[in-house]
Structures are given as C-alpha cells and as structure tokens.
C-alpha cells in the first residue's frame, strides 16, 4: 500500500503551495474601477468615429482622435486601451445622443473648476433640437456678466456630445466654434438633431433673436419646443426681450429668454 503523503508537514506545505499569481488584468481593472486609471475605446457617431475615455466614476473624456497620451498627461492617470465601451455605457450614450435626457451618464470631471462644471451641467439642460446663446447659460448659473468665460468653459468641455456644448451658439445667433473638430461638425450635429443651421443663421441675420406668439403673448428662443407649434400667422419675431416686453409679451417659463442675448 502506498504511503499517502498526508502527514501534517506535507499537507501544510501543499496547502501553502496553493498560492497563485493574480491574473494580469486584475490590477488595471481595480484601478479603472476606483477612478485611478482610465480606459479608452472607439465609438461611432453621426460625426464619425469618436474616442471615449472612462473609469468607474464616469466618462472622463471624448475626442475625435485617439487622445490616450494627452488624456494621461492631463489627468495624471494611466490610460489603457479597450476594444469597446462597456455595453451599458455605449447604450446610454446612444440613447442620450438620440435625445433621451432621462439616461444617466456619470461624468468624471475631477480637476475642473466649479465654474466650468456649473456651465457644463447647465448645458445638459438644453434639449436635443434646441439651442441657447452663451448669455443664457451665464444668466442661468447666476453669472450674467461671465458670457465670455462661459464660452471659454464650453471650449474646454472634456466630454463634448455628452455635455452638449454644440447646443450653445453665439449671442448674435451664428453657430460659433466647436471643440470637437471645428464648426462644420457643430452644424452636422445640430442638423442630425433636427435643426437647420443655415436657416437659423439667416433668421438671426434678419434680427430675429426671439419669437413671440400673438395668441398667447409669450416670447421664446426660436428653437424652444413650446413655441414650435404656433401657427405661422401668430409668429412675431423680436430683436430683443425689451422689444417683446414693450409689445406686451412675457418670457416663456420653459426656455427662459434673457435680455443679455442682445447686449453683445
């Protein structure tokens, strides 16, 4: 009969030998999950391929080219390439880009100022298919004079498309600059959201900054959805809120037009 090597010493030694090496993916997965490292993957959208960076805290970056190196330099975190976005995140981004504002997409905006984050959060309130001028954001976040700073903050938006800075236009009604590959992309995205950028600019050029409804005496931003169904015989364009007020119109409570829009 064979001797079983199950005496205490060999047994303990054998059990001690059951230590194994952790899979190489373990440490990166942990670091990404707690937000000490990011992953980056490609996502296809209306304006072509985009690169999305994320970690366990949320989406941390969106750019039109692979920005792994610059993202790592900016955040000070390692960036690991991934084959694709996690299903849930990809679906959430798809739904958000399709205009569903109920989808929650967590954002990781550590390292940015409170002011910038206020601006980006406010931009998230603009519905798909509508635009607002920079001055509107400035007024809404309680910094009516910081119009230029709002523009700068939007230009630094690390997560364009998800924070829809493309829905913020210049005070004179022209489409304006866009950080994600230039103004042409901004027009493409707005068109994909159901707007007509050329018509919008033409109307602004004619001085139509606000649209009033003669049957309700309410004045709105031209793209406000509440004003979109008015009969054309009731449409009253205005150059400014002051002009509309003088004509007996009150500002829409949904889109909240401001007078700052005509100041610049």
């Amino acid at each position, binding site marked *: 009969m064979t001797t079983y090597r199950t005496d205490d010493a060999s047994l*303990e*030694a054998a059990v001690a030998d059951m230590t194994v090496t952790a899979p190489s*993916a373990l440490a990166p997965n*942990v*670091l990404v999950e*707690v937000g000490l490292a990011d992953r980056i993957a490609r996502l296809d959208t209306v304006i072509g391929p985009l690169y999305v960076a994320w970690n366990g805290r949320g989406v941390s970056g969106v750019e039109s080219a692979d920005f792994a190196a610059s993202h790592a330099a900016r955040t000070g975190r390692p960036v690991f390439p991934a084959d694709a976005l996690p299903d849930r995140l990809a679906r959430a981004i798809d739904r958000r880009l399709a205009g569903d504002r109920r989808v929650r997409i967590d954002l990781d905006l550590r390292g940015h100022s409170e002011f910038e984050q206020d601006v980006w959060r406010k931009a998230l309130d603009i519905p798909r298919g509508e635009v607002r001028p920079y001055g509107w954001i400035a007024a809404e976040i309680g910094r009516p004079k910081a119009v230029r700073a709002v523009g700068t903050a939007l230009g630094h938006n690390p997560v364009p498309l998800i924070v829809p800075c493309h829905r913020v236009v210049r005070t004179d009604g022209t489409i304006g600059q866009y950080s994600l590959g230039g103004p042409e992309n901004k027009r493409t995205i707005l068109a994909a959201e159901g707007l007509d950028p050329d018509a919008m600019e033409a109307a602004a050029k004619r001085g139509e900054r606000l649209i009033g409804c003669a049957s309700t005496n309410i004045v709105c931003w031209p793209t406000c959805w509440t004003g979109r169904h008015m009969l054309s015989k009731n449409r009253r364009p205005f150059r400014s809120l002051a002009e509309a007020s003088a004509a007996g119109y009150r500002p829409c409570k949904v889109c909240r037009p401001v007078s700052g829009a005509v100041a610049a």
Partner: protein
Amino acid sequence: MERGGVPLRHATVAPRRVFYEVMDTDGRLAADLARDLDASFEALVIAHQDRLFSIALRMLGDRGAAEEAAQDAFVRAYKALATYDRDRIRELRLRPWLATIVLNLCRTRVARLAARGAAPLSFDLEASPLPEPVATDAASIPAAVMERRAERERWAALLACLPPAYRAAVVLRHVDGLSYPELATALGRPEGTVKAQVHRGLAMLRTAIESSDRLERQEMTA
C-alpha cells in the same frame, strides 16, 4: 499512473520570512495610504493582489469568480479607505483587514449561487469540482512539475469542498499564511476557535485526499 510518485517535497513549512517583510511593508503602506490614498493605492493592489486572488480562488474554486471577488474586494477597500480618517488608516492592519473583505465577498457569492440553485459547495467527493486547468505553456515545463501542479490543483479542489468555516480557516492560515491572532481578527472568532478550525479543517482535507486516492485506485482496478 503512479500516485504518490510525485513527492510534495517542499515539505517543511518555512518559517515565513516573507510574512515579516510583508508586515514591514504593510506598516509603511498604511502610512503612505494615510498620507495620500490615491497616490499609494496602486502599491496596495500590487502588494496584495496575489494573496487576495489566492484566497478567493481557494474559497470559490473558480478563477473567474475569484478574479471578480478579488477585484470587488479592492474596490471596497478603496471606498472604505476614502471615508477613514488618517489615524484610522495608519493603524489599519492591512493583511487581516483585506482578508476579511475578500472572505466576506466570497461568502456572499457562494450564498448567491446557492440561492440561485447552483450546485452547493459541499463536502462531497463524488461531486468534487474538476481541477483547474494548468494554464501555462505545457511544453516548457518538466513533467514532474506539471504533475505536481496537477496534484496541487486536485487537492485544492478537495479543499474547496470543505465546509466554509473550516475552508476559510485553512485557507487564511496555510494558503495565505496569516498568524493565529490575525486569523482571529479576520474571522472575528476567538483564537482558540480558529486554531481548532484549522486543525479540524486539515484533518478533513486529509480524509478527503485519502478517500479520493482510494476511489481513484478502485476505479483503475475495476
């Protein structure tokens, strides 16, 4: 096949010098974590990933589940550390603390599997899980080493069949090398109890190995 022909001969349980080094490193690590959690957390993961994964693997018997449990354990540890004040982190005994976290996750995982009606992990030789595939470039490894590994994994599978309380005690004491006081802390039981559980657990494992060997021999002669 000649069982027993593969001596498990690294026999003597080496007085764990590694263990004392880890103690030192852990003290420094805890101080670093207290000073700057984000800057030092990676070092914690690197220093403890093999042992947390080993504990989880030997508790759960499945690599995928073990990887998830170890990952969750680190994430929990990070979230907990983020809420602790500096003094509390500095005084933390990382080894038993992390062991407790991963062990609890393994427990809930097993409970969840059982609730879902999956095969319960029980002390049942007939239904013992298959040994882990030895995933390395087989050609470059001497046959003796290969065989020893296969043997080790067979024993590990038997270990995974011990009742959870005994399995945890054996895994923490002998796979992970915790001291009895640490073990008592990690398991939240008196030292005498955990000592008894380790011994009883090893005895059960021995019985399991012996009957498994006997079973195998019977099958070969049958």
